[in-house]
């Protein structure tokens, strides 16, 4: 990692908006080129995710880094509301009411340029399946905190199969951390611990679709 990205990462972890803004200002060219800044955000957040995975950073540091990134992106680019984003990828908090995991994932991968729809919190299988079909979602990322919610994903998968609707399901959250094989048991295609895991899976899935 280059020094600039390392410094930016440290500013994010420290939730230092002033220093991170100054650093970005020095890189931002007059055309509003998103590419350079996109890379810095991606590399910094990727590293933050890896450190979280190794237990070196806390959930609060990861979440607030993402919050700060969103604020910075809005300050520099004044992005439009993402409610009308056109995407075949969606994220949802399923069955339980703990939305922090979804928020971390959504904000960090959005900041890195991935267009995804935020389905909020949905408890009802039929409602979620219907929405995925109507909006032509092909990859669904599900975040849960509670074990019973994780186990309900099995019923959700069965609902998709009854509708004969083919969909990739990636799952994440505490139950999948404590039981790394649980994702298979509930019929998911993969599990991830960090936003980078999700981004890598999306890239691989897109590549497979092309081929």
């Amino acid at each position, binding site marked *: 990692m280059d020094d600039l990205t390392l410094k930016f990462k440290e500013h994010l972890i420290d939730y230092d908006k002033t220093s991170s803004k100054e650093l970005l200002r020095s890189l931002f060219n007059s055309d509003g080129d998103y590419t350079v800044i996109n890379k810095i955000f991606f590399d910094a957040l990727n590293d933050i995710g890896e450190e979280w995975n190794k237990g070196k950073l*806390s959930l609060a540091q990861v979440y607030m880094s993402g*919050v700060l990134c969103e604020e910075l992106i809005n300050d520099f680019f004044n992005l439009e509301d993402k409610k009308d984003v056109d995407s075949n990828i969606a994220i949802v908090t399923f069955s339980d009411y703990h939305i922090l995991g979804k928020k971390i994932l959504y904000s960090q991968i959005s900041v890195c340029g991935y267009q995804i729809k935020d389905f909020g919190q949905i408890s009802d299988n039929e409602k979620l399946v219907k929405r995925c079909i109507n909006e032509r979602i092909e990859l669904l990322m599900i975040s849960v905190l509670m*074990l019973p919610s994780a186990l309900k994903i099995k019923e959700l998968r069965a609902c998709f199969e009854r509708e004969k609707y083919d969909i990739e399901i990636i799952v994440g959250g505490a139950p999948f951390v*404590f039981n790394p094989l649980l994702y298979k048991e509930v019929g998911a295609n993969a599990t991830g611990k960090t936003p980078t895991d999700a981004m890598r899976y999306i890239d691989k899935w897109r590549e497979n679709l092309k081929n």
Partner: protein
Amino acid sequence: MTSLQRVLTTLGFSEPDRVPNFMLFSMYGAKELGMSIERYFSDPHNIVEAQLKIRKKYRTDAIYAFYYASIETEAFGGGTIFIDDGPPNAAAPFIRTADNIEKLCVPDFNTSAGLQRVLKSIKLLKHEVGDEAPIIGVVMSPFSIPVMQMGFDNYLKLIYNDRELFWKLMEVNKQFCVNWANAQLEAGATAICYFDPVSSPTVISPELYLQTGFEIAKETISQITGPTATHFASGICLPIIDLVAQTGTAIMGAGTLDDLKLLKEKSYGKLTILGNLNGVEMTTWTPEIASKKIKELITVAAPGGGFLLSDGHGEIPFQTSEEVLLAISDAVEQYGHYPIGS
């Protein structure tokens, strides 16, 4: 030895007759009585019947008077959502603005129907068990309850962006926590489990804990008139073990991802370790796997005392089978007699 004597011996870092079996059952009582979780928690007599049944069946050494976390936020005016097969969840956050915090008052537990049911359970349980086994009451720490009061995301933002308002919220929560803890002790609880997952390094950095959760724990625990255990609900605790020891708590709940050998080495003589079976994996165990896990855990953590065998989260999952729980109890009997390995 009675269960209480067994527990007190291990808390004194001596070896009792066997490792105390501290599996903690809350909503699981509904399963034992064959009723819905919502119905189970509606009547204190259900908790009494289930706890006595569970203690006899699984040969545990503690009575757990815990209902569910959001029973405390009900006292603030919050709601609870019951599900069929898991812990009740807090309903929508009721603190949405800074003004809500400015105007927040300390609830009176005497006027909270839910908290009165808990106290009634404790009184009835005390009447049944006397001093035979410890009765564990539970409080949500002032530092962790805001996750339910205002939502996790908004609470983290409050801690980072408005420390003055954060401390105002802590003043109200601290008073409530102390009042509620002492009410349970007065009703007959032997000790209080201080649930504080936000203080875990899983959730906030040790540096931030030092500025916040640590100070709050010290102040709150010093005003609780009985012994306490601090639990991080699956969060790790090794990086903050020296600080936790300074809060005045006697027992520390170890998360499933903690290195238990290292934790025991660093805590011995200062804190008794409670834990740390993997509750999520437990739901997929066979009796043979359960027995193996117990043997491994006891071998690492039990020698010298200072250890209570339990799960890492603070409650046995609803999905855990009876045969696995019986296998755990059998294994504690088989492998848990001191000296370990004899």
